[in-house]
């Protein structure tokens, strides 16, 4: 039974750790499906985290924090769009640049405004997204197996967590069942076809990166005022890149994206749990193995050893009308 409790606790933290990955990977999904590579997911998440923490602190409202996070993240998206869509710049270079701007600017502004070395003051109460206890969670706690799972894994998460999981079918529906999604996918495969169909390639791609910014706004907000209670220097800590890895691992498809994020979240949770513990027969397993696993798995996938990951065909290529 003790092992089961451990499992429940690991699953609980798996869910919590995979949420920022999930929002961010879905953001990348929209951008990359439209043919715009987005290395800048990390930066957008970080900028959104900072903005949401500042706004939540200033207003005392988590929802206004979310709004600020989304706004700032979309602003970063628009710069990325301006560079890579309007000016046909290198999308990777642009993403790298924005990551640096985000890492630096959040600390510079944080220090200038709050003088705590880049951290923002703690927010509490209404300024945070707090856990929601689903109906019957406490009552069910004693039911074997299902009870603890319901109470500790499914219940007790904040609203953003539930939104993240709802975003998965929603993203699928938007991409595959709406006009917007059809055009978005088309523009990532053959922008010429979209252009000759009388649709503006640039505007279509701008809308895609705006959606990406919107979703990164959620992941940043989650980091700052749902999972934590303040912004901390570089608190995204490479999660944007793990999300990118998850996106590739899922071969740019929404539902597999969710499973990839859960898998990488699970590895993270196991790493945290294993810290300093030793496994029978093997001894102490270095946590670094679990930290490196998402990246190793993604490389193995990219090498084509587990199926072929077919990226959107026009990805990374600025659209120029052919003469």
């Amino acid at each position, binding site marked *: 039974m003790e092992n089961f409790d451990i499992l429940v606790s690991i699953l609980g933290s798996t869910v919590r750790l995979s949420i920022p990955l999930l929002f961010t990977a879905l953001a990348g999904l929209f951008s990359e499906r439209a043919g715009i590579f987005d290395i800048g997911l990390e930066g957008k998440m970080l900028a959104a985290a900072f903005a949401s923490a500042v706004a939540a602190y200033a207003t005392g409202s988590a929802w206004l924090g979310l709004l600020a996070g989304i706004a700032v993240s979309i602003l970063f998206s628009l710069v990325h769009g301006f560079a890579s869509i309007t000016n046909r710049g290198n999308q990777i270079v642009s993403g*790298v640049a924005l990551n*640096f701007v985000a890492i630096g600017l959040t600390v510079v502004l944080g220090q200038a405004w709050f003088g705590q070395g*880049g951290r923002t003051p703690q927010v509490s109460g209404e300024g945070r997204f707090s856990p929601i206890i689903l109906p019957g969670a406490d009552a069910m706690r004693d039911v074997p197996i299902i009870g603890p799972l319901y109470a500790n894994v499914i219940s007790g998460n904040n609203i953003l967590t539930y939104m993240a999981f709802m975003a998965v079918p929603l993203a699928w529906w938007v991409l595959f069942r709406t006009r917007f999604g059809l055009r978005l996918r088309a523009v990532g495969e053959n922008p010429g076809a979209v252009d000759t169909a009388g649709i503006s390639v640039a505007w279509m791609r701008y809308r895609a990166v705006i959606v990406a910014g919107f979703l990164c706004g959620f992941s940043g907000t989650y980091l700052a005022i749902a999972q934590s209670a303040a912004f901390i220097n570089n608190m995204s800590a490479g999660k944007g890149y793990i999300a990118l890895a998850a996106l590739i691992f899922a071969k740019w498809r929404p539902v597999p994206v969710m499973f990839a994020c859960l898998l990488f979240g699970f590895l993270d949770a196991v790493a945290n749990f294993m810290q300093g513990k030793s496994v029978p027969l093997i001894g102490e397993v270095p946590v670094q193995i679990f930290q490196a696993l998402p990246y190793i798995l993604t490389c193995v996938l990219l090498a084509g050893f587990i199926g072929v990951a077919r990226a959107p065909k026009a990805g990374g290529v600025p659209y120029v009308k052919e003469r």
Partner: protein
Amino acid sequence: MTTASVPLPNWISYGLIPLLNLLLAFFFSGLVVWWIGESPLEALKFLIQGSLGRGDAIGFTLFYTTSFIFTGLSVAVAFHAGLFNIGSEGQAYVGGLGAALAALALDHYVPWYVTMPFAITAAAIFGAAWAFIPAWLQAKRGSHIVITTIMFNFIGAALMVYLLVNVFIVPGKMAPETRTFLEGGQLPKLDWLMALFGLKLGPAPFNVSFLIALVMCYLVWLLIWRTKFGYEMRTLGISPSAAIYAGVPYARIVIIAMLISGGLAGMMALNAVNGAAARLQVEFVAGAGFVGIAVSLMGRSHPVGIILAALLFGILYQGGADLSFEMPTITRDMIVVIQGLVILFAGALEYMLRPAVVRIYQQFAKG
């Protein structure tokens, strides 16, 4: 559209436009400083004083410059072969392992100049090794090298932390780092060079790796523009289909170019590990690999441009440290913002000003 095909004189393409882009980056950096309520001009003054005002300041500036030359060259070599190596950071980190092993093995027995060639070789080999798998995956399996090198940065970081915490740590110490190298494992400081100019180096870790970096600049120039391999690299980088036509072996070029790139990144460790800290520490690269991207973009992947761009970033890094003492509201992270803006304007937005410049140029050319 129509302005894209207008040829511009080289001094505009390679001089004026990059300069304007740089000025734009600094203009926006100034805006940030102004936004947080400080005077941009005042900040600039502290920045210059802090980086060039005294002998030790110059020493620190040149110390940073040295690291950035190595990583800038690393990114540039890959660029010329059409590869975007974002992994210089990780390659430098793993290169540090090589540099440290050479020092740890030899410092008891031989003077520094005997250790040096071993340290150079080991740093380069370890850096190259860390570039090899992404290179091989790109060459043989078509895996996107941008993504794999990013992944390898993280894998490298995990590996190095594991080694430092579990293998190299000095028993009884808390800090995850190797023992301090004896003099035989260090690279001496360049006090004499500074003295030639009547400057005192003080505590600044400006060391012999600066000279190694300059030699590497020359070798890279030779490689790219004066060798058959460099010719093949550039052919592949500009036109993959022409490279196939010409019988340029794709996989070979990709792998060798990345090995050279990784090797150059690895050599950055000579400066930080053997030159400055005299031991291998966690995260000693501290972003220098990423600065290399900015340096290479700004320097147009040419060694001379890279030296100038590396110097500029050296000034920023050293001056920025000083600036944060003088103006506590501006943290050192301001440098990272500037770095990002430079990459944005000199890299991603490099064509933004071109149409306007072309129009003005045509006006002048006509009139």
